[in-house]
């Protein structure tokens, strides 16, 4: 790890607006829920009746070999891919589809889906920052174009958010001028600034040089401490151990087992899980 990263208070009402979506843990209802999801690409069924949910303030780490459907699950939860069968629910409300007479469901038009997506933040393995915008521009885009904030206002909010992830001095730099770790922190700020109810992370450190992993995990762990609801697909067992409340082991499109980090990471019940953890850790 390079220099220690000064990560500020991330879920600040002064930055994010009236109510911060992430609050104290409660077991009342799931913030985000998947009910027997099925998803196939051509002949292969990637998700095979997968069910799980995250409570407010929950941090869940998803482990699993490649091809086990982890990324597909996140993309379905983020409403980026339509599901073939099953439901995605946000705070108990079914999303992504609408009923057209006699209980027949069709995917919502992209324009409507776009609105529902703002409740979910997504961070990608390969950052996917917009190369034509500065760090500040990347974080501002959603505020201006989706939330309809005035530019000056959006600039202040985005600037404050970048400061919290330790990138105040890099705000006017373009993605090509930032390290991988810095780019990923901008990407986290870009998602966070929309004040989502849940943050989804799709292998956020897998594309990083080893020495840059720490700075991204530091931001994620701070978010977890502040009560953000998070689902992270990751191979970082250390992160799962330190920050996750629950660890999920996925295999072949279903959840193999779920439990507290110490159970899954130290005493997995399934042979498949044990072999995976040995291989990664």
């Amino acid at each position, binding site marked *: 790890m390079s220099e220690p990263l000064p990560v500020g208070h991330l879920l600040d009402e002064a930055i994010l607006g009236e109510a911060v979506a992430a609050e104290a843990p409660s077991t009342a209802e799931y913030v985000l829920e998947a009910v027997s999801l099925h998803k196939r690409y051509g002949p292969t069924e990637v998700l095979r009746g997968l069910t799980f949910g995250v409570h407010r303030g929950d941090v869940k780490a998803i482990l699993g070999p490649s091809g086990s459907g982890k990324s597909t699950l996140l*993309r379905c939860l*983020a409403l*980026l891919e339509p599901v073939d069968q099953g439901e995605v629910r946000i705070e108990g409300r079914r999303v992504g589809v609408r009923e057209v007479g006699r209980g027949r469901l069709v995917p919502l038009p*992209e*324009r409507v889906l*776009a*609105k529902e*997506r*703002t409740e*979910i*933040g*997504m961070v*990608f393995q*390969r950052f*996917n*920052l*917009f*190369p*034509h915008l*500065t760090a500040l521009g990347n974080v501002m*885009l*959603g505020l201006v*174009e*989706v939330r309809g904030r005035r530019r000056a206002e959006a600039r202040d909010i985005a600037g404050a958010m970048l400061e919290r992830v330790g990138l105040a001095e890099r705000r*006017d*730099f*373009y993605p*090509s*001028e930032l390290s991988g770790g810095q780019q990923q922190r901008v*990407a986290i700020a*870009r*998602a966070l600034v*929309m004040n989502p109810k849940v943050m989804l992370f799709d292998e956020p450190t897998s594309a990083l040089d080893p020495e840059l992993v720490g700075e991204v995990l530091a931001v994620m762990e701070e978010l977890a401490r502040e009560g953000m609801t998070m689902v992270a697909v990751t191979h970082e067992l250390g992160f799962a151990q330190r920050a996750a409340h629950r660890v999920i082991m996925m295999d072949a499109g279903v959840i193999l087992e779920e439990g507290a980090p110490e159970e899954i990471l130290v005493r997995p019940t399934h042979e498949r899980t044990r072999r995976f953890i040995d291989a990664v850790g």
Partner: protein
Amino acid sequence: MDFQPDIFVEALTSRALLQGVQVTIALTIVAMIAGLALGLLVALMRDHSSPLLRGVAWTYVWLFRGIPTLVLLLFVWNALPQLFPALKERWFSQFIAASIALSVNEAAYAAEIIRGGLLSVDEGQRVAARAIGLSPTKVFTKVIAPQVVRVTIPPLSNDFITMLKITSLAAFISLQELLSLTRTAVALNFRFAEYYAAAAIYYLVLVTILMVVQAWVERRFRWISQRAGGRSAAELVRQLAPMR
């Protein structure tokens, strides 16, 4: 060698050539803008989910990239009024005919360039733009389009330069553009060398202007921060300072 500089200067400053170059510029701009707009439409249709639209776009490119520009020009000017008598009216001028032919031709080339640009944008860009909740229109205008512009500037500039020169084909339908008026002048004074040289100079100047615009646009789409440049320069000075 019979080349009289004073006649050359006279040609350069002649009213005829100045008028002709104005028509050439106007035709170039019209064909550039209309060709780009139509080309963008065709490019978007090329990879549309509807097979019908894809077929229409493919046919468009096949047809208008395949027909020689001069044939197209003569067809629009001479053949279309025969097919559609409404075009025999006065409003259907040589300028309009040339604008249509060149725009339609330019669009076929622009469509392929823009399509290449669209395909070059990483799929992750669209996904990330959708993930922050941008509407489909804004995904395109705010995220995809700027990246397409960047990669298509060099090939499109190249194309515009070709098109600028091809406007001279409009002399065949007696549009009073640069080449046409040069030929009229030469027919009277037989000073071929001086007048064609003057016309060539005009074309070179116009192409140079396009190249300057291209360089300017390319710089705007470089996506490097001023501060990064300034900082590294300042660092360089600081590094060099102890050596003095």
